[in-house]
């Protein structure tokens, strides 16, 4: 199995590896790039890499081990995330892959990338802030904000309201 050739990469999925048979060896960078195309199932504007839950990519020959850390221990998206990672790798010809779960160090919103924070804001979710409350309304930029509820539609969010534009909005909890 380990010597079997990888299936061709579907056109358009990958520009970093030639399709002419003289394949470049698989690199962790390549796998990271692939994982950066996998969206979070509940907040699809942010990739798993930008969310900071991919902790490591290790290669052993053509075997890929992706180390993932959960956001919240009971988050129902965790299983879907693992399935999505494997599906992406399989679609790109990487059949020999497995997921490892790592609990420590525990995930922190500090690991969300700048690109990810910008995408959250653009989507209407106020990104996490060190002081634990949103900085500004993601819709109008208003600074007069009010907590509606400490939890929201997913485990990672809280509900806030802007007193300027009166719109409710999601805030990505800071942990």
């Amino acid at each position, binding site marked *: 199995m380990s010597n079997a050739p990888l299936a061709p990469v579907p056109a358009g999925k990958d520009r970093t590896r030639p399709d002419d048979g003289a394949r470049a060896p698989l690199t962790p960078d390549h796998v990271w790039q692939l994982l950066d195309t996998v969206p979070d199932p509940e907040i699809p504007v942010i990739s798993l890499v930008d969310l900071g839950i991919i902790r490591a990519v290790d290669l052993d020959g053509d075997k890929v081990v992706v180390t993932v850390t959960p956001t919240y221990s*009971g*988050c129902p998206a965790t299983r879907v995330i693992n399935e999505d990672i494997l599906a992406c790798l399989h679609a790109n010809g990487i059949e020999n892959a497995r997921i490892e779960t790592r609990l*420590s*160090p525990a995930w922190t919103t500090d690991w969300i990338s700048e690109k990810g924070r910008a995408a959250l804001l653009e989507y209407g979710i106020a990104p996490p802030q060190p002081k634990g409350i949103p900085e500004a309304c993601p819709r109008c930029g208003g600074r007069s904000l009010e907590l*509606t*509820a*400490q939890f929201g539609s997913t*485990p990672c969010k809280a509900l806030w309201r802007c007193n300027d534009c009166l719109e409710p909005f999601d805030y990505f909890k800071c*942990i």
Partner: protein
Amino acid sequence: MAVDRDTLFDWLLRLGDNTLVLSHRVSEWCGHAPVLEEDIALANTALDLIGQTQMWLNLAGEVEGKGRDADALAYLRDAWDFRNLLLVERPNGDFGHTMMRQFLFDAWQNVLLARLKESTDQRVADIAEKALKEAAYHLERSRGTVIALGDGTGESHARMQSALDALWDYVGEMFLDDDVDRAIADAGVGPLPSTLRGEWDGIVNAALNEATLARPDSDFAQTGGKTGRHTEDLGYILAEMQFLQRAYPGATW
């Protein structure tokens, strides 16, 4: 000094059964809470607790070494094999009563998990590190609710005082040391429960003071949950929680 397998298994069940039974109790509010935001908050709290349960009970099953995972331990044991505190199986009562129970538990869980982060068993320390972040958020919320309702209207104050009085008999069990706890503490795996009391008192006294609630005088403690002697309420919880797996063994989504 290493701890033997049976003792570690029993102790891990205590951790996992606490979060499992409390999670089930809190989830009973789903669709019934006084306002939508509280409904969502309670359901999310239950979700965090069930996630922690999976970690603790999977580790318990791994330690036991008989091929049982978290699902097998949750769905296929009877009441006398459960090791949760009596506090967490107490019926919900009204919303204030549920939040008072949550606060008393959250304060304890925060103190406990902070100590478990220093466990000599790395698997225990890793789970504690993860769970503590969630527990801290739960405490922030339940503490705020207890204060808001305690220092609220005459009606809400009376209900919170009555909840505190009714639940107080179940507080003492959290700080009771037995042979399992002593073996665990000797091995450096976890703290002696009695050593958690001072810090818990500090958190609880400050909040009750702010909530204008009177801490009950009594030191009486209902006990038995940690060794499998439960109130009849646990049986009703298990009947609901386990029915599907009992009636249709191995059923999956």
